[in-house]
């Protein structure tokens, strides 16, 4: 009786729990969006909401115009796809919805090193 009680709390490498706070998720979302678009994180805003137990992310950022072409909608799609994939796999949370709001235009700086 005692052995069954003790066993379960030591599943895995050891007792303890890894918690990811909301703040960390927000910073992670900012970083993923920055990597996907090249926009600095201080120009991006992220908001999370719960949608029936799933995660809904809203990204507000200026759209970056560079020489790669592509319509704004395509850029949005690209960001959404990348975000779903990268953020989902890094945070372990399945993102149900990604809303993207472009609230400005940002010119890619010419001659930057990337």
């Amino acid at each position, binding site marked *: *009786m005692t052995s*069954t*009680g003790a066993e*379960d*709390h030591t*599943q895995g490498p050891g007792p303890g*729990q890894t*918690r*990811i*706070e*909301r703040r960390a*998720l927000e910073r992670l979302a900012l970083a993923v969006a920055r990597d996907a678009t090249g926009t600095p994180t201080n120009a991006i805003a992220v908001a*999370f*909401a*719960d*949608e*029936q*137990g*799933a*995660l*809904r992310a809203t990204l507000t950022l200026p759209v970056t115009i560079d020489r790669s072409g592509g319509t704004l909608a395509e850029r949005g799609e690209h960001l959404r796809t990348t975000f779903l994939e990268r953020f989902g796999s890094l*945070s*372990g*949370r*399945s*993102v*149900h919805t990604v809303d993207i709001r472009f609230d400005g235009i940002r010119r890619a700086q010419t001659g930057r090193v990337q």
Partner: protein
Amino acid sequence: MSDSTQVYRRVMRRETHSPRSVSAVIAAIVLVLVLLAALVGGIWAAVDGAFRATALKASSQVFETLGNSWVVAIAVLLTVVALWLILLAILPGRKRRHATVAGRVALVIDDGVLADGAAYRAAHAAGVPRDQVSATVARNRVDVRVTPISGVSVNQGAVTRAAAEEMRILGSNMPVNLHVEDRGVIA
């Protein structure tokens, strides 16, 4: 052996139900005093006519000096006491404890302990912080409520099984009733 199980059953019942002996003793004493007074007064009044007259006068005087509102108040009070006694007699008076026999030991466990154990294991199985799980123990059922983390699905079967396993370890085979909240918290 059957002797000890009988003893266990009595002890367990005593530990899981609140005693009525104090109220029973008080009620009996009050009843005895009132009946004794009635008996003595009745006999005295039957024998002694002068006493009967003074007693009647005194009682009507008491009612007059008290006034209607006081009489009503006392009546209400007595009714409440009567209802209270009736409820004490009828209700089972269960304490928030569960008792079980484990081998040669009779175990009495507070419901709070059972609920805490179930909630702890449920939180572990659901992968949520302990403060996102609450559990309450009813007479023969454990209700576990889990607030999920947004974007992380809760394996309901595993959580229920884990909580039920904990209940089994604690010596109680109460079924677990799991409820996962619709809205999760972002964490």
